[in-house]
Every structure is written in C-alpha cells, then in structure tokens.
C-alpha cells in the first residue's frame, strides 16, 4: 500500500524537476541577501567597537607616561630639622618644608636668579605639589639620608605634563594658556639636559584619589573593586549554586516554584540603581554597616549578581543529560550523591562561566554604588573591606568631571585598565568553557 502510493510520486517529481520552476534562483538570492545583512550587522558592530577602542586608546595611552624631572636633591638638615630634635618629636620629619628642597635643586639646575620672584614662581610651578609627600616618605623611611645629596625623579606638575604631551594648544596667546613662555623655555632646557622625560606612570596604579592629576591613581579603586569582587564571589557563588540545585533537582514543580522562577528572571532585569536603594535602606540604615565601605558595595553587587548566577547555573544543570542522573540512581546513589558526584562536576564549567560573566557585570557597575556613598574622593588605602574605598568605574566617573586637562587622558587611561580587567575575566570564562566543557 505505502509502496504503491510512493513510487508514482517519486517518479513524477523526478521527471518534472527539469521543467517546474521551484524558485531556486529567488531562494539562492534570498540566502545571499540574508548573509549580506548578517555580515553588515557584524561589520557595524565591529566598526563601533573599533571606534570606541580607538578613541579610548588614542586619548588614553599617554596616561601611562608621566613627565618627571630628575633632581639632585640635597637633604639639608637646616631645612628639614633646623633645631635637631627629630629623635624626640616625630612631627618634625612629617611636617618639614620638603618642597623647598626640590625647589632649590630645580633653581640650581635652571640657573634661576634667586632674587627674581616671578621667575622663581614659574620654576616652582613646574614641580608637582606631590613632592612634599614623595620626599617626606623617602626621609621618614630612612632618616639617615639627611645631610646627603641624592638623585631623585620627582613628578612634574599636571599642566607641565599636559604641555609636554602636546595637549595644550600652544598657539593661543600666552595669557590664555596654563603654561607660559618662560615655563616652556624651562621645559626645553630640562629636556635638552636630559633630566626631564616621560617615565612609566606607576602612580596610575598605586596612588589613591587626588585633586592633582599627576598624583591621582587607581590604587584605592583597584583594591576596592577587588574586595567587592571577592565578597560577591564568596557570597553569590555558594548561595546561587545552592538555590539552583535545590530548584532544579529537588524542588517539586508547583505554583510556588513557578512564582519563584518568574521572580528570579524578573530580578535579573531590575535596574541596578534599585539594588543601590535597597542597600542604603537595609545594609546602612538598618544594619548599621559603614557608608562608602567595600563590604556594603560587595553585598549590593551580590544581590545584583545572584539572579544571573542562578539562571546560568540552572541552565548548566539542565544541560546535563538525564541519562547521567538515571545511571547514578540506578547503581544505587542517593539523590544527593547523584547531584554532587555526577551532575555538579559536569555542570561546573557552565556555572563558572556564568559566575565570571556575572562578576564582570558587577565590576563595571556604578549606579548602585552612588547611593551607598562609594562615589567619593578616597585618598587612603582601605585596610579592610569595612574601610571607605571606591571602585574602578567610579574612579572613571569622578575623573571625567574634573576640570584639569591632564584628567582627560587619565579618564581614558582608567577605561583602558578597566577594559583589560574585563577582558581577562571574559577570556578566563572562555578558556574554562573550552577546556572543561563536555559535549554529549
């Protein structure tokens, strides 16, 4: 019966295929068009990616160099400790007039007439005000240096740095410029003498926040972000995995679990500022945790990341074939042994990938931190997560609002650093997936 009905049909199509128009040409054309659209979409995406990266890198790569001046500084006891009581009073070394030491050395190098006040002032403003702490730290760490002369690289002022990098328009009239002609002359003298050059800007990674661009760095922000990521990882991963294992493997499928599932999916889409409001109300106002502290930021970001981790984990658990579960149960494993010995290890790569992507999102988040006081000027390193700190994206936001020209490149420099962190995390996620993922 089936044979009889099939044979005539196949022969019919076989003979008619040469003559009947089945729109082959149009279908090929449609496919070509579709491929072209897809290619155009990818190209557009790439174009904007390169535009973003290009503009950030073009503007920010200079931030990794900082103009510095090499000075032979005489640590004159007359200036640092004129009364000779540094052993009894530690404040002497902390409050000495260190800038004077650097200014003297610079005047000598430039041959500035000590009686010419205007020239002296112009020369002094080549130096960063950060020399005070720089020289103080040198002396405090080794007081025996007093009375000797050392060669020290000191930071140049932010305006000088910008001028050296060509970020000021030097063709406008002198009075409208941040750097005057005499200072440009001094810069040239120093450059020709080989004592002024752009050096790698380690300060960008180690300094805390500062109102002076040359001594502003991401140190506090990096530590703050690190604390927050550690807290998110420690809290969100176990809670998220436990919740998903229960929901996926143990929970009965009923109205209640459906509601929970809908809520989790909803929470993943809630704007992050809402979590900031929640954090302010619960962790700061109710629980009394300190403002601006990384611990509160970490808790808020944990709440924000949890839904993402739960969704990713549930998807990873679902992807483990039922035959694995049936086999485990079949050889006598308990349900818990089945989950922990077989399902969880197989789902681990997916869980880790989801977690890392969740962490990367949390790392780039600023809005919830605004309300818990982490968008702030924090100069001191946080010793514990309970001390005030900032975060990487916050530092970018704070710098972007600064008036000084030198902060423009630092903003982009900070973006490059943040992008590098994100790239490392995302690449780790891909490597983990490639390495450990099992296909069935």
């Amino acid at each position, binding site marked *: 019966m089936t044979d009889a009905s099939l044979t005539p049909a196949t022969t019919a199509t076989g003979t008619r295929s040469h003559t009947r128009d089945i729109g082959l040409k149009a279908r090929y054309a449609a496919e070509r068009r579709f491929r072209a659209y897809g290619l155009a979409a990818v190209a557009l995406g790439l174009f904007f990616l390169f535009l973003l990266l290009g503009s950030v890198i073009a503007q920010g790569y200079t931030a990794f160099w900082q103009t510095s001046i090499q000075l032979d500084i005489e640590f004159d006891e007359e200036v640092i400790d004129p009364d000779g009581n540094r052993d009894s009073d530690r404040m002497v070394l902390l*409050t000495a007039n260190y800038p004077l030491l650097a200014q003297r050395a610079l005047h000598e190098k430039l041959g500035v007439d000590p009686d010419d006040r205007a020239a002296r002032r112009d020369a002094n403003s080549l130096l960063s*005000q950060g020399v005070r702490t720089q020289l103080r730290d040198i002396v405090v760490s080794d007081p025996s240096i007093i009375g000797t002369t050392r060669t020290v690289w000191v930071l140049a002022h932010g305006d000088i740095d910008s001028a050296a990098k060509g970020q000021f328009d030097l063709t*406008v009239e002198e009075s409208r410029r941040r750097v005057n002609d005499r200072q440009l002359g001094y810069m040239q003298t120093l450059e020709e003498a080989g004592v002024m050059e752009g050096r790698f800007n380690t300060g960008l990674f180690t300094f805390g926040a500062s109102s002076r661009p040359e001594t502003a760095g991401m140190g506090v922000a990096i530590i703050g972000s690190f604390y927050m990521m550690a807290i998110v990882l420690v809290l969100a991963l176990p809670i998220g995995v436990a919740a998903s294992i229960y929901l996926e493997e143990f929970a009965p499928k009923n109205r209640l679990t459906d509601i929970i599932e809908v809520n989790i999916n909803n929470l993943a889409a809630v704007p992050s500022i809402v979590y900031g409001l929640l954090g302010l109300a619960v962790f700061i106002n109710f629980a*009394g*945790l300190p403002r*601006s502290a990384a611990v509160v930021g970490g808790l808020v970001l944990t709440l924000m990341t949890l839904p993402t981790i739960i969704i990713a984990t549930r998807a990873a658990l679902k992807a483990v074939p039922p035959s694995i579960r049936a086999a485990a149960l079949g050889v006598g494993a308990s349900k818990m042994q089945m989950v922990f010995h077989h399902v969880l290890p197989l789902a681990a790569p997916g869980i880790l990938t989801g977690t890392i992507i969740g962490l990367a999102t949390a790392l780039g988040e600023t809005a919830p931190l605004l309300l818990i006081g982490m*968008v*702030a000027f924090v100069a001191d390193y946080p010793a514990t997560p309970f001390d005030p700190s900032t975060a990487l994206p916050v530092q970018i936001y704070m710098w972007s609002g600064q008036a000084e020209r030198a902060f423009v490149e630092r903003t982009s420099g900070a973006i490059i650093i943040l992008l590098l962190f994100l790239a490392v995390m995302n690449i780790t996620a891909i490597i983990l997936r490639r390495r450990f993922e099992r296909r069935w």
Partner: protein
Amino acid sequence: MKSLKVALAAALCATALTTAAHARDQVSVAGSSTVLPYATIVAENFGETFPDFPTPIVESGGSSGGLKEFCRGVGTEFIDIANASRAIRDSEVASCAEAGVTEIQEIRIGYDGIVFASDINGPDFALEPIHMYQALAAQIVVDGELVDNPNETWADVNPDFPDWEIAAYIPGEKHGTREVFEEKVLLVGCEAAGDLQARMDAGMDEDTAEENCYAVRKDGKSVDIDGDYTETLARIDANKEGMGVFGLAFYENNTDKLKVATMSGVTPTTESIAAGEYPVSRPLFFYVKKAHLGVIPGLKEYVEFFISDAMTGPDSPLAEYGLVAAPDEEREATRASFAAGETL
C-alpha cells in the same frame, strides 16, 4: 567537621556585630559638585598636613543630595559635613530638625563666579542679563502681550550679536548653580525688560510672576546639563555656536578652549568678583553637624584647616584653583563664628 562549621558561623556573626558598632575614624563629607574640587584639595592637604588623621572622604552628589544625606540624623553612620553651592533652605532645616539634626553650623568658604563662555574662535559677547532673559525665557512680553519666546537667533536678541541660532547649555535643576542663574540673570533680566511688572499688571501675583520669569524655554534652544561642566564643554566642542554656563574655576582651567562673555560690561575674574563688580557670583558653603564635633576625630581640625588663610586666603591653593576668597573681615568673622559654636 560539624563543630568547625559552627565555629566558622559564630566567627562570621561576631565580626559582623563588632564591625556594625565600629566607629568611624575619618571625616565624611558629601554634597555639591561645584564645591567638590575645593573640598578634595582641602581634604588632600589635610591628610598631608595632619598625618595623625586619615584623609576625609568627600562624596559628590549635588547640593540637594548632600543636604538630604546630612539631614538623615546624628550619629557616626551619618555624614558630618554637607557641601552646598547655595544656602540651606528653610524646608531642609526643618527636615534636619525632624531627624534630630538641630545644631548646624554654617561655614561660608568663599565665592564662585558663574561665567558664560563660547568657543574660543567665536566673536566676543558683551552680555547683559536682559539678553539672557530674552534668549532663554519660555515666555516674554512683546508689544504688551505675554507670548512664547519668538527669538530664534542671538541677533534677534541684540543686533550686535552674531547670527547664531540660540543654543544655551545651562545647569540642570539639581545643581545649586541653576538657582543662582535664575535669580541673578533671568530674574534681573526680566525686571530690566520691565516684563516682571508687565506680568504683575496682567494679574499674576509677585511669586508667580517671578517663577514665570525664570521658566526657561523647552523648545530645545536651552539645554539642561545634569552632568558636570565637562559635559557642557563637550557640547560647545560639538556645537561651535553654543553658549555654556560654567564655574569660574572650570573656565580658568580651559581658557585655551573657551572665550568668556562679559556680563554688564565686566569680565569675570577673581578680582572683579571679589570686588563685587561682576554680578553673577554666589557664596559657597558647607554645613557642619555640631553634635559630631569632638566625636569624629579630626572634624574640628578639618573645618579649622578649611577656613584658615592657608587654604581659603587670597594666595591659597583654593584661590589658585579658582575660588574667590572672601574679604579679610568676612573670613575673620567665619572663623570667630565657628570657634564660638554659632548655629543656624
């Protein structure tokens, strides 16, 4: 294994409890983004000058946001100082009092000029408040009738101005600067044009008429900038025929990109503002919780350091950044008032 878990949980609870009661040992400041750069300079110098105290934390968030945070209550979990680019409002004092913040010390740190600037390659502008009013008000009086602002270009406002389409970037509502701009420019211009009187003659009471005077047009010719001055600068970079409102300090850091307009014939400089010649300036403030003095280490020292001549005097780092120092007597009076513990 079980006992280990219990011990771990107990340790966690204990740390959580001890840290909850953990007192703050650094000054915490929040508020105006105009005052922020000044406050950070002081905070940084404070940290360097007083090695025994940690550097104060300075949050941004606008005058209103800072004062709201300030008025939450007394205690180490609340901030000590609110920076503001305007004076505290009566409603804010009332909401402070409700939360138990009754003793507030007002500190005036100096003056800030508000300047109008356009692209450096553009023509000179000699503005009067009346020009800004006629260019930006939502409604103006034409031939005795209140009509929607018909001016399209600056030349419509004053034939001496270039034939640029009006595009002004003014601070958004959350900025304290906006209030000053409304009162010292739009309202003054409205009065100068006789429009305030015309509105009152038309039956509005004085308050409504004033509010009506500084309602800005919503047809896209006046753009509210809710971000910082860097955003305003970016807008002027993009639209070379735009006019932006900046703080004097920001302008002075960008004199190679911006050309400042004179207002009522006076060029804004620290000198002309200190002398009271330049009309659009305003005092900057911060507010201190008296109850926190002596509780938060370094708070008293920070305030005293802030109002010392070394920080806010005529040759101080703040003056160098663009703050207009208050006259000698006023600074002396501020110091005396803080020392005497005078509250609002």
